[in-house]
């Protein structure tokens, strides 16, 4: 844990649901984590987990709408040394029971994003999306 980290802080930003937005999601996260003085190793891991979750929205929740003008929101909150990242989208409802990564020993392309998220974060929780949102994913990590 970084010594200077973790004043209470919340920031959120919306992004077009496109693969081309993923670099902007990463830039946003890096800027916020810079302000929170999170060390480089953890910052890299958190950015990966967040970008994978955003990618899942593009790839799965909007699988049938690649040219959507919808936006997704990423909200990063830090309170009492607990980092919480919320994702909001209006895509196809996610069935949490079907969100699984592939068997890690069954080497083949795909199916690793969710594995990375679970490896990096302490908790992954789908909550009911409140209107206008359909999906609300929350990732948490104790700093």
């Amino acid at each position: 844990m970084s010594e200077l980290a973790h004043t209470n802080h919340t920031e959120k930003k919306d992004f077009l649901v496109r693969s081309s937005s993923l670099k902007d999601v990463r830039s946003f996260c890096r800027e916020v984590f810079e302000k929170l003085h999170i060390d480089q190793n953890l910052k890299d891991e958190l950015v990966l987990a967040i970008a994978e979750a955003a990618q899942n929205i593009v790839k799965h929740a909007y699988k049938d709408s690649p040219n959507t003008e919808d936006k997704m929101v990423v909200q990063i909150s830090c309170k009492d040394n607990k980092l919480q990242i919320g994702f909001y989208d209006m895509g196809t409802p996610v069935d949490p029971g079907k969100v699984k990564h592939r068997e890690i020993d069954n080497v083949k392309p795909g199916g690793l994003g969710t594995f990375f998220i679970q490896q990096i974060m302490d908790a992954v929780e789908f909550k009911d999306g409140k209107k206008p949102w359909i999906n609300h994913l929350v990732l948490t990590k104790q700093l």
Partner: protein
Amino acid sequence: MSYTVSEEGNIATVHLDGEIDMDVTEKAKEVIFPHIDAGKEVHLNLSKVQYMDSSGISVLIESHQKALEKNTKVIIKEVSKSVLKVIMMAKLEQILNLE
């Protein structure tokens, strides 16, 4: 993502530069796969790739498997520390050819 390719004999050396995510995986495949399809040994230099996500890892797996089918190989060279960490998180350091 940008790239350079140089060829010498049966070896194609591909240098990738930038961040490899879902947005650029098709481009990465277009750069790498034709050399594998041609039966070349591909040296994939990742020294200038500072970020790679699961989509990028999938390109590495697919390249590796495609090379095996073509009786050749993909050797990943000069992998940056941050990308190596992701490769190791995916438990692929013993599967892919890393140098």
